């Protein structure tokens, strides 16, 4: 098999807008649907395969679809590049912070039952605190993937 030479990675081409109205309109129509499916995967992590990481990947897929079809410039309206690193840091902070608070409250790392939230059963607390942790994971994965894409284009 002779390798075919490929002019890969047209940086300017990746940043520009796709010209074809079919791709354009379909991406704009499908991006909200993909977002809602990603949020569903995130919220139903207990019952179905999924949870934070998979939900984050689907959210990032939606944003990247917009980045690729509308062009980097216009899609800043939906997910600004300057926000991604911040969001990723906030997500990691949520994850680690919850774990550390549990340690200070007398439990192990990420031991949700010990979180100092009043008027909550530990059983309920375990149920809802895991959603909180997943929120951190989702934010981190989504923001990191989008920022990797942006940084690759800047290089």
């Amino acid at each position, binding site marked *: 098999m002779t390798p075919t030479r*490929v002019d890969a990675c047209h940086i300017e081409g990746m940043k520009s807008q796709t010209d074809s109205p079919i791709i354009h309109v379909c991406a704009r129509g499908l991006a909200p649907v*993909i977002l809602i499916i990603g949020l569903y995967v995130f919220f139903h992590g207990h019952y179905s395969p999924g949870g934070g990481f998979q939900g984050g*990947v689907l959210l990032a897929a939606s944003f990247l679809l917009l980045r690729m079809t509308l062009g980097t410039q216009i899609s800043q309206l939906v997910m600004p590049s300057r926000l991604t690193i911040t969001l990723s840091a906030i997500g990691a902070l949520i994850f680690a912070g919850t774990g550390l608070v549990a340690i200070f409250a007398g439990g192990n790392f990420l031991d949700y039952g010990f979180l100092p939230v009043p008027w909550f059963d530990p059983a309920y607390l375990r149920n809802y605190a895991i959603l909180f942790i997943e929120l951190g994971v989702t934010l981190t994965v989504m923001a990191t993937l989008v920022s990797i894409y942006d940084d690759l284009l800047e290089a």
Partner: protein
Amino acid sequence: MDTFFDTFFLYMALAVGIILLIPFYRVYKGPTLFDRLLGVAAVGGKTITIVLLFGLIYGRLDMFIDISLGYAILNFVGVIAMTKYFKKSASDY
């Protein structure tokens, strides 16, 4: 009847699994880059059905539907990304 359908789904999964391998020849051979991409896209489409068949075989269809929906989404975004990323100049053919 249930045992019949279990066997039927198993053979269907086998059949789709074999069909899945045929486009790989195009991925390997393809004279142009786009033939390879087309083969990859075709494999991705059939994977949706094989994931659903695994769901029917294991009796957890509601769970596997989410996987296959996510796979369909990532396949579509992947094809769009590939068409955006790869560009060959006409002299290379």
